[in-house]
């Protein structure tokens, strides 16, 4: 039987240091693992309301992001949508039009993807710099492992491939060129 269509979306703004952790993890997984059956992996950036289309088009959405939980930087959380949606009812702490609000808006639909978030507590999201703090960089493989474990529990088997190191991934985000894209 075919598994539910699944997308992994890395979210965050790479301009603000650790805020980009989700984007890097998604890329790291894409570059270093193959999945069977195949899944889609997206660099979502700060998608905002454009997230809606993914909630509507896929049966499962796994979001990789930062979470602002008061805990040691580098700590990793795996949160089901149900928990996130509960936050929306608590008006003053609801996040803006993003992961949570899009869940709310789509909650009117009969059918939306099963959404979950794997997030890391960041250390530095204030510095304007395309890089990661050492703490987050060190913890990043564990976040990737958690995402792979989560996908594995849903039936997607990962195999390691000859890929790209985290440092070289960060470097290419730091210096994107038209030449690399278009030759």
């Amino acid at each position: 039987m075919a598994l539910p269509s699944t997308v992994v979306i890395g979210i965050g703004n790479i301009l603000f240091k650790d805020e980009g952790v989700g984007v890097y993890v998604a890329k790291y997984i894409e570059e270093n693992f193959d999945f069977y059956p195949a899944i889609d992996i997206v660099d979502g950036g700060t998608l905002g309301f454009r997230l809606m289309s993914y909630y509507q088009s896929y049966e499962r959405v796994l979001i990789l992001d930062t979470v602002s939980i008061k805990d040691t930087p580098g700590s990793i959380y795996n949160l089901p949508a149900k928990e996130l949606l509960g936050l929306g009812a608590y008006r003053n702490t609801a996040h803006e039009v993003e992961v949570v609000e899009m869940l709310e808006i789509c909650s009117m639909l009969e059918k939306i993807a099963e959404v979950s978030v794997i997030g890391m507590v960041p250390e530095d999201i204030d510095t304007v710099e395309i890089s990661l703090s050492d703490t987050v960089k060190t913890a990043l493989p564990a976040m990737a492992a958690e995402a792979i474990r989560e996908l594995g529990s849903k039936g997607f088997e990962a195999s390691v491939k000859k890929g790209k190191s985290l440092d070289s991934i960060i470097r290419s985000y730091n210096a994107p060129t038209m030449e690399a894209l278009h030759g």
Partner: protein
Amino acid sequence: MSKHIVVDPITRIEGHLRIEAVIDDNNTIVDAYSSSTMFRGIETILKGRDPRDCGLLAMRICGVCTGTHYQRSIEAVENAFDITIPKNARLVRNLIQGALYIHDHVVHFYHLHALDWVDITSALKADPKKTAEEARKWAGISGEKPWTDSESEFAQVQERVAKFVKQGRLGIFGNGYWGNKHYKLTPEQNLLGVTHYLQALDMQRDMAKMMAIFGGKNPHPQSIVVGGVTCVQDIQNPSRIALFKTLLLSARKFVKQAYLPDVYMAGTMYADEALDGTGGGLKNYMSYGGFRLDDTGFYKSALLFPDGLVLNGDLDRVIPIDQNKIAEDVAHAWYEGDKPLHPFDGRTDPKYTGFGKKEDGVAYLDTKNKYSWIKSPIYDDNRVEVGPLARMIVGVAAKDKRITEYVTKFLKNGNLPTKVLFSTVGRTAGRAIETEIMADVMVEWVDELASNVAAGDLSTWTEFDFDAVSKNAKGYGMEEAPRGALGHWMRIEDGKVANYQAIVPSTWNAAPRDYKDRMGAYEASLIGTKVADPEQPLEILRTIHSFDPCIACAVHIVDTKGKELGVYKVDTACAV
């Protein structure tokens, strides 16, 4: 006794915004402050880079408007190098931006703004048969058929809402100010609005597809380069152009049969507050001008949206825009600086001074001093509003034929006087009018592109000698983005970026006071608004949402404040 209302964060917007309003004994807002409490600063990251690559990072400023920042950055370079792009490239760029307008405006109206006007719970009391009559009535105003007038469909939606409410499903139901007396639609009108809300969720997916046809990879487009576009294969493929047109025609139908009728409905039911000017604000409107209609080059071409400045709502006078007169002031923003600077010389040096007094555990903005991360842009020493309404008003004042025709038709069909435009309702109507203009003109553009390609013009890129033109140059990409005037300014020395500044539309609108203590557009728009229930800042949200705020150029994090989430922590000790 005056009382403070603090709304932080404003939800259903892109990004993080805080509003502090002061109300008097009659619950009327007498003072207001707008603050983005998050820092942004793309500028420092772009210095020293190859100007041709800046677009790839500039698009990271905001995830919703990736394409529009990308294109502005590329066009700043083209302007600096004096490059005129080929006709196909101009049309493709117009179509990508136009698709963004339609998608943005429809999602804004239905999913980010409608619930400020539509009371979902009231829809439960509606009679589906009468709802069908309402649907025919409001679409009929402009001679259209309704998007749907099926009684059974309305009944189904009603059932679905009833089921969700009964289940206690969380989400939007928990978040509204349902039952607030400033909701003015009838149960049937509310049911019609909710039905369109759901249908718009499906429509927006197709509108997003439209953007990707020529834009390439979503959500980070990459088909635009300095000199033109790279999607040569897509424009040479008649089935790609045909797909674009099919999606466009279906979007246009929705705009005419659902969006416009709903705005007629809201405009009529909320006419009293449009007539008394609630939410009008500054009444100074500015448009940089946008969407080139011919190939005479930047800032020379005929434009879909004319450039101009209209002061004090005076539709008889329009002042042309001169980019030299733009400056950014930081008197009340958390940056270093002592006088307004033009963006070519702009600086972004943070100077955070924190919040002011703290009372009952609430820290208030230090409004006498610095209180926002947004700078205050000024045009020729005027505070101005930008956005769809500004484009419509500048278009009418400039006697633009197309814009005047659509605006006049809207007011005539709705039986509304011109002055309703200067209000929150007017701002929302202006966006709808503009969406119809865009949907119609895009049909012309897509046909023009198809026939130009069919006639044998396959050119998509203008060649230039980078080393020769990039020694010492400066340029700007100024356009009308969905939310208003957007500009990127760039100075280039020896082939590298020497200075970069971007002023985004929400900077113009959401800015704090300036060096003369004059209010920004959001702030001014709240003054005089009557609040029905200070515990439910519905009217504040309605007016702020009418600007379609986008402050997303800041940090973005899943916020779990106040929730105990320990059980979901991943034990990484045993992780690979």
